[in-house]
């Protein structure tokens, strides 16, 4: 684990969708487990958490959805540009064969290295519209759905998942995406008696369990998570409901 940011050089950039770019960098001897994240630093601007979405021999990648100023600045970067990373942080997924991964939008980035490591995995990815779907070439058998039906089935992963849970026995379901979606995935898994692990997102500062910024019902998403089991989530009242702003205000989760 790297405690102070090291500057890494972008060695490749891949456009995963109109709004998502993957930035590849030489990973040196850093080890990442699927579900862990790094803090990405743009000097003079800000520092935010990103899942490691590619893990190749010497190279790692982060897939970034353009949302605000920070991610826009990342999108503006070119090959040979540099950013800082520290980490990896957090507790990742507990890998098991015979599983299903459910990704909503950029949440797919957290599940990607997991899927790489589990060849028999079933992947469901949902997005609002076709242009939101990523990694289509990477995961050929992936089942896709869009809210507007512009790609794959019309509907959300929540519409797709029950059918899967009915037709097959999964050892585990892994999920990452909007928390409202995660909440319903966990509900479904509970109903079908399948264990589930979901990766949460909270605003983060330290990334290593000290500042209390990323609290979710007494759990530090950065250190105790970001991946939690459905059993753990069942006693986390804030899950699917509340998050904490940068200023520490408790707000209803979007």
């Amino acid at each position, binding site marked *: 684990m790297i405690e102070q940011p090291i500057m890494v050089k972008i060695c490749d950039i891949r456009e995963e969708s109109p709004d998502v770019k993957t930035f590849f960098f030489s990973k040196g001897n850093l080890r990442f487990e699927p579900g862990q994240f790094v803090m990405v*630093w743009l000097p003079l601007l800000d520092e935010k958490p990103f899942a490691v979405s590619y893990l190749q021999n010497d190279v790692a990648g982060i897939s970034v959805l353009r949302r605000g100023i920070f991610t826009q600045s990342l999108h503006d970067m070119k090959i040979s540009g540099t950013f800082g990373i520290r980490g990896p942080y957090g507790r990742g997924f507990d890998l098991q064969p015979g599983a299903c991964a459910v990704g909503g939008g950029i949440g797919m980035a957290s599940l990607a290295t997991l899927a790489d490591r589990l060849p028999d995995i079933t992947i469901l990815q949902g997005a609002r519209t076709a242009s939101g779907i990523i990694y289509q070439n990477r995961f050929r058998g992936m089942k896709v759905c869009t809210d507007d039906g512009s790609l794959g089935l019309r509907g959300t992963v929540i519409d797709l998942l029950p059918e899967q849970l009915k037709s097959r026995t999964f050892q585990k379901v892994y999920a990452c995406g909007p928390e409202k979606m995660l909440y319903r995935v966990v509900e479904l898994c509970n109903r079908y008696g399948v264990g589930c692990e979901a990766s949460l997102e909270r605003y983060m500062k330290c990334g290593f369990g000290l500042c209390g910024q990323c609290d979710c019902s007494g759990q530090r998403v950065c250190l105790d998570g970001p991946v939690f089991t459905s059993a753990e989530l069942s006693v986390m009242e804030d899950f699917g409901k509340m998050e904490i702003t940068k200023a*520490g205000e408790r707000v209803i989760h979007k």
Partner: protein
Amino acid sequence: MSKINLSVNLCNIPLNNPGILASGILGTTRALLKRMVENGAGAVTIKSISKEPREGHKNPTVITFEGGMLNAVGYSNPGVEAAAKEFSQLNEIGAPVIASVIGTQKEDFVRVVEGLSAQKFSAIEIPLSCPHTPGFGLLAGQGTPQATFDITAAVRKATSLPIFIKLSPSIPELCSVAKAAEDAGADAITAVNSMGPGMLINIDAQRPILSFKVGGVTGDALRPIAIRCVYDLYQSVKIPIIGVGGISTGRHAIEIMMAGASAFGVGSAIYYRGIDVFKKISDEMAFWMQERGITNINEIVGVAHD
């Protein structure tokens, strides 16, 4: 270790052990306070609260280095109104909860203290010592004897709870500031806040790492300074001292108590030794006491003085 008694009485607040969660560390939510008590804290302090919500500095805000930690969080907090909601039913937390109150002028402190008065806090801590937040602490001149006296006196009128004044290790007039606090009615001194400020530069980015550039130094680096501050204060004021700075083991805790602290705060060590650091420290203290035949922790307070 049945005979070992770690409980202390701090300004009439009974603590089952002298370890207190320091302000700004995991004190953002009621749930985290509870978790820290379950993990052995004798008392817990909430993250400092100001009148209005504050976003604080941009990231990076906390970074580690070989000798400890550097932080410039910038007093992010939801403001007194939201805080009063968050920190309700404190009797269920399982240990005393200390409110940390900040302001840019003395009226602010009073406003926040009043705003939190409906909640069952056990004491009010007032840090006049932050080295990295414009408008607050050292950057607002709150670390002088006069300002300390004025703010303490104003808060004294606003509450009957014990008041802890939290001081900076980086001011030469430490003891006069503490005396001013004592004279104005403070019940204890919390010593110390983070020191410095300090700076770390990433040489590949050629820029300071913290977005605010400078921040307060905590952890191991701070311990000898904190021990000295407590030692000096013990000879200067009569009110109890809460020793804070780089405490991460039972030996460190005993060390700062021997310097004169009646209780001690723990912050950075949660990173170094995990969320159960308070349990570990209590066990280590009890083990040491057992070996030495000391049964009551209060016996060791100040014994390093001639």
